[in-house]
């Protein structure tokens, strides 16, 4: 229920430039995920928004109200920002019971004890841990501690909820459960959420929008599917998607109407309408073609739809799907096929794909020059 605008945010730790001229808008009701490898500045962004860190440059608006103006050295304290934060380590106070942990903030705000009891009970129930109210954090499992941490964050009904890799300490199964839980929480409360993770699956499944970081800079901010289909550059393309996207080197002849690409995958033509503004107008450029593994189809026979010859390097059937590594010339391609098929090593196979669905990047600038449509 809150719109956050970050403009020109710079954050240094000593000489270390952690956030570089960051501009990001989080719309009211967004589930915004900050995604990137560790050390890229996503947690710092979260802490800057929360007020635990002060940026050296920039302005942050919350619902149009200025909460940070670095130039004027004005920083609203965290408690005045109507937000709450769930730490990666949960940061539950070990000397307080679950109830006291959750009630702490309400008590600071001097709400009366009846209201506190009611609100805490409701928050605990929502997180399905009402029965543990009298226990101490150390007596709870990791998943239960996680729920307490979230209950503590939502009990004061903040307009903005910040989550810092909350699921990273949980085992795989619990993690999937909690994902659903969080998504439901977002849906029910409508609270704006900023969620930090390095796990792209979490990002893709939960967010309404994803902000992808690279070394303190934003690379792309987009809804999950857009990010997946049309990554703006090679970095994004490589980061998003599991298994990773296949890259194939080629050269392109660009003309006014479109371009022609030669690569081990054969010759392809693309219309100007499918190309980005970043694409060159004419001339010959080195390009990298990006093909998602699920876009590639595989066949033991060559036909119209399967024209690229290759040899199986290894096949990995996993029940619902099969991943096959195929060597085409010098390039190794991963193919994802639904169902379970067994391929022998060095077996000749033929690959095909829909050229409309591939991305083309200019190798030198690494930027996307042709959309997947």
């Amino acid at each position, binding site marked *: 229920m809150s719109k956050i605008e970050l403009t*020109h945010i710079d954050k240094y730790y000593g000489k270390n430039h952690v956030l570089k001229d960051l501009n990001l808008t989080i719309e009211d009701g967004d589930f915004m995920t900050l995604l990137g490898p560790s050390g890229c500045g996503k947690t710092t962004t979260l802490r800057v928004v929360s007020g635990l860190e002060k940026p050296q*440059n920039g302005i942050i608006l919350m619902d149009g109200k200025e909460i940070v103006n670095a130039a*004027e*050295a*004005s*920083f609203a*304290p965290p*408690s005045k920002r109507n*937000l709450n934060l769930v730490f990666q380590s949960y940061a539950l106070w070990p000397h307080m019971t679950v109830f006291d942990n959750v009630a702490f903030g309400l008590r*600071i705000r001097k709400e009366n004890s009846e209201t506190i009891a009611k609100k805490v009970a409701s928050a605990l129930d929502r997180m399905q841990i009402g029965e543990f109210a009298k226990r101490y954090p150390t007596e709870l499992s990791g998943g239960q501690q996680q729920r307490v941490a979230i209950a503590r964050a939502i009990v004061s009904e903040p307009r903005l909820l910040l989550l810092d890799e909350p699921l990273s300490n949980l085992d795989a199964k619990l993690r999937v459960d909690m994902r659903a839980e969080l998504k439901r929480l977002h849906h029910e409360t409508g609270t704006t959420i900023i969620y930090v993770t390095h796990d792209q699956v979490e990002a893709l499944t939960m967010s309404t929008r994803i902000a992808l970081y690279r070394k303190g800079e934003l690379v792309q901010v987009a809804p999950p599917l857009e990010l997946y289909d049309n990554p703006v550059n090679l970095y994004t393309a490589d980061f998003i998607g599991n298994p990773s996207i296949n890259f194939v080197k080629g050269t392109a002849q660009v003309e006014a109407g479109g371009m022609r690409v030669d690569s081990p995958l054969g010759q392809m033509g693309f219309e100007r309408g499918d190309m980005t503004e970043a694409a060159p107008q004419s001339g010959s450029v080195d390009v990298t073609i990006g093909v998602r593994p699920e876009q590639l189809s595989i066949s033991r026979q060559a036909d119209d739809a399967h024209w690229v010859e290759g040899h199986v390097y290894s096949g990995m059937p996993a029940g619902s799907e099969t991943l096959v590594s195929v060597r085409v010339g010098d390039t190794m391609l991963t193919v994802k096929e639904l169902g379970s098929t067994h391929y022998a090593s060095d077996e000749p196979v033929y690959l095909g794909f829909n050229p409309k669905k591939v991305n083309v990047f200019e190798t030198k600038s690494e930027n996307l020059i042709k959309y997947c449509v």
Partner: protein
Amino acid sequence: MKPLDQSYSKSRRFKNQVKAVVTNPYNVIVLVAIVLLTYLIVLPLVDMLSTTFQLAQRDLRATGGTMADVGKFTLYYWQRLLASDLSWNLLFKPLLNSLTIGVGVSVCAIALGSILAWLMVRSDLPFKPFFSLAVIIPYMIPSWVKSQAWLSMFKTPRVGGAPGFIAALMMNAGVSTEQIEAILSPIAYGRLAIIIVLTLHYYAYTYLLVSAALNSINSELEEMGEIQGASKPLILRKITLPLVLPAMLSAVILTFSKAIGTFGTINYLGSPVSFRTLSSELYSNSKSQNTQTAFAMAILMICIASLSVFINQRLIGARKSYATIGGKGGRSTPIGLGGWKPIVTIILFIFFIVGIIMPVIILILESCMLKEGTYSLSNFTLYYWIGEGDPNIMEGVSGIFKNETFMMSLVNSLKLTLVNGVFGTIFGQMLGYICAKGRGKLHGKLVEQLVFIPYLIPSVAFGGIYLSMFSKPQTLFGVTLIPALYGTFALLTLTSVVKHLPFASRAGTSNMLQISGELEEAATIEGAGFFKRFVKIVFPLSKGGFISGFMLIFVSIMKELDLIILIMTPKTSTLPYLAFQYQNQNCPQASNCVAIVMFSIVFLVYALANIFGDADLAKSMAG
């Protein structure tokens, strides 16, 4: 793309900045702390330094000149100390001795302390509860008691009086006096003896620090080494040792600076062979009223110790954070000693009996002997404990428990140690909080350095300077900040608290480092202000460390004499003063009684804190 077009008002920026600094209690506390520490620590140091450049009246006879020259700038003292015919005997020879003692004690104490720590924390040694209690005792026994015990063991006939236990045995066995001298003299007095006795005193620092570090290492780190196929000694050398190295180096500083600063043991064991160190020269000069020379020596000692601190910081460098890497919560599987177990156990028992229990027993025995040195049943008496004023004994002074002065001193001592313990711990925890939060930042380093200085200033000098400073009201621009504190309990407290800040804040720092910053941040998010956070989060979480910090101060203030003897008035005398007085009156037995009472109080409080308060000296020393 920089926001150059962004308009802002400089005045508003300034106003906000000032507001941010002033309204943040943390900043205010840091500022107050730095100002106070500068006032309470740097000023005395500067005072000492300036004294060494000012001509004293008593040295007019050497330098010539008239009364008008008194207090004028002079290089006389430094020149005399550093570049005169006397320099070798006055400074360099004693300095070399000091360094050998410092290095010797550091090496031995580190080795002994580390081995004991490893055995206590890591091995499957039996009787661990007993050993780990006994191992702290040396810290509680004054080092002169150990020196005395050492002499009663090894004293040779040459220095007259009753020979030591071993010498007596050898004499009975028919060994000639010359041979006894040849064998025992090098052990009984001088360098070796001093190093051994001081090692037995100061290994406690290493033990406390290293065992804390060992406790925090996840034993999986060692097990990993074992899986990789490393032998136990190799694991010890390649994995365990590097992990506890920062703790060991930290112990080196404490041990080294204490060893070069100590006087009592060196006086006892060095005098018979004229073995003098910088500290004994310092005390001699001070006792001969050569205050300036003594201060100059103290400053040199501070420099040496600071140098060791500096080297240590360079050595530890990036490793500083090692000790907590594994974090707690990891399993700790004791390592089997195998066939060595019984041997190690027996050696330890002998060590504790000879090195720790025996001095205490000798002390107790001597307190019950009518005449010193006569070991017979008829000589046994409880007079010094509960005697009713027999004019033939101790010039008619009654036994300590029947003695009003003793009761007064007991009450004073208890009051002083308790009040100081509490205040010292509170300030220590606050400073520790600053050091921990400001790690790597300028203010953190500054506070950490400032707080270490009192550790190095000789107690008598420190006490004297405080007496001068606070006997007059302290005013600033005509406003009285502090009234004259002369003769008040407040001055005693202030002096002891500041002098013991190094320990207290060290305990505080390690304590605060154990509290994750996120716990506090979580409270910040909830809107808790600085004080609320301190009261609701930081303090409850640091309760255990608080009690340990209290113990550290309690133990050392209980033994304190030099520091407060100048500040004391007849009505505020304490137990160590009484022990000193009895010693003066040539009543070592009564003096021993007082020492035993002091030791018992310390031990009792320690045991109570251990049982009820979850105190752990080791924990509070780490960090």
